[in-house]
């Protein structure tokens, strides 16, 4: 079923259309919220709250707006509201998932990619809250920077700057971590 049709049905209170629509975004949305939370349980709470807010807010949803941007803006606000009340907001990375995803690779490349992934993940965890938000909304929400700026209520240049520094940190970290390997090889 087409996304536009599902959205129209949702606006008319069709619960089954809502189930189908959210199933399309389930993985991306859950993955995004997972990056902000400590545990699976907490992610599920955030996910549930997002679903309730999206369902309730459908009447206000404007067709002109990209649905994914609207959805991830709500998810972002839910995550931020909840994280404000939780001091210990370290993110959680489940590397077993990475291992599962890479099961088809050969052992050597698997190790290298796995290490790089670990570096990226650790660096993303260490980013400032704003940098992490911009990076994750881009990755999971597949939002443009203009949409991100609107979602988090920040000027476009600031958003670009957050992304620029986030990528710079990630790239730098990959270089630093790969340096000993290169030196050993020489």
């Amino acid at each position: 079923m087409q996304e536009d049709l599902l959205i129209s049905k949702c606006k008319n209170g069709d619960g089954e259309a809502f189930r189908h629509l959210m199933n399309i975004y389930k993985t991306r949305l859950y993955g995004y919220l997972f990056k902000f939370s400590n545990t699976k349980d907490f992610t599920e709470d955030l996910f549930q709250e997002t679903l309730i807010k999206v369902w309730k807010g459908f009447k206000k949803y404007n067709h002109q707006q990209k649905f994914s941007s609207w959805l991830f803006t709500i998810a972002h606000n839910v995550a931020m509201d909840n994280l404000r009340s939780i001091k210990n907001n370290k993110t959680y990375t489940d590397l077993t998932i990475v291992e599962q995803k890479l099961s088809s690779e050969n052992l050597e490349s698997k190790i290298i990619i796995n290490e790089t992934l670990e570096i990226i993940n650790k660096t993303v965890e260490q980013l400032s809250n704003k940098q992490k938000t911009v990076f994750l909304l881009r990755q999971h929400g597949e939002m443009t920077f203009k949409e991100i700026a609107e979602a988090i209520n920040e000027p476009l240049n600031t958003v670009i700057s957050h992304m620029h520094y986030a990528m710079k940190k990630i790239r730098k970290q990959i270089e630093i971590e790969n340096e000993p390997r290169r030196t050993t090889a020489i």
Partner: protein
Amino acid sequence: MNQEEQQLYKEFEKQVWLFMDNDLPENKMQFWNEKLREIPELNNCITEYKRISNLYAEVKDVDLDLNKFNSMIDKAIKKDSFFTVINNSISGLFKDGSEFVFGKIAFASLLIIAAVIISLLSNRSNPVNNLSQKLNKSVLNWDAGFVDDQINSVGNLLKIAKDDDYRKYYKYKLTPTNMDKNINLINSNIENIKAEIEKENL
């Protein structure tokens, strides 16, 4: 890369994000497209981002169990069902382009009027009822002549007091009528006391 190219590279690093989103002005987009062909190193900016992005995509696929997802959807829909029904009914009532929109408005108005009338007629205590009852009992059942006399009397007293004419005031107080009233009052009190003493003796 020469110095000029390095400068361009730095500039492109800042604009690469909007370039990828196609959100740069047309002339800028054209400019960078040309430069990307001329200086292949500029492509590194894009490929580097894409490499990290693709690598990151490998870990983002953490997923939610389908049964759990379905129960969450049920909960979200259920939680709002009552409000949705109310909301839908109200918004449906005033939906534009409906043939029966005037009929619906009239029907809604009729319902509101009926609700107000029922509320006023009901025995349940409500502020409108209470107030009207109080008004009927006290304010509306007044004797115009009596109230007028009272106001005049208070007015006279105030006038006398204001003029500091105490003699006049006492003279007014000690009129034969007032004296008779007071004597009668004292007499009746004495009679009452006598009657009570007699009762005690019996």
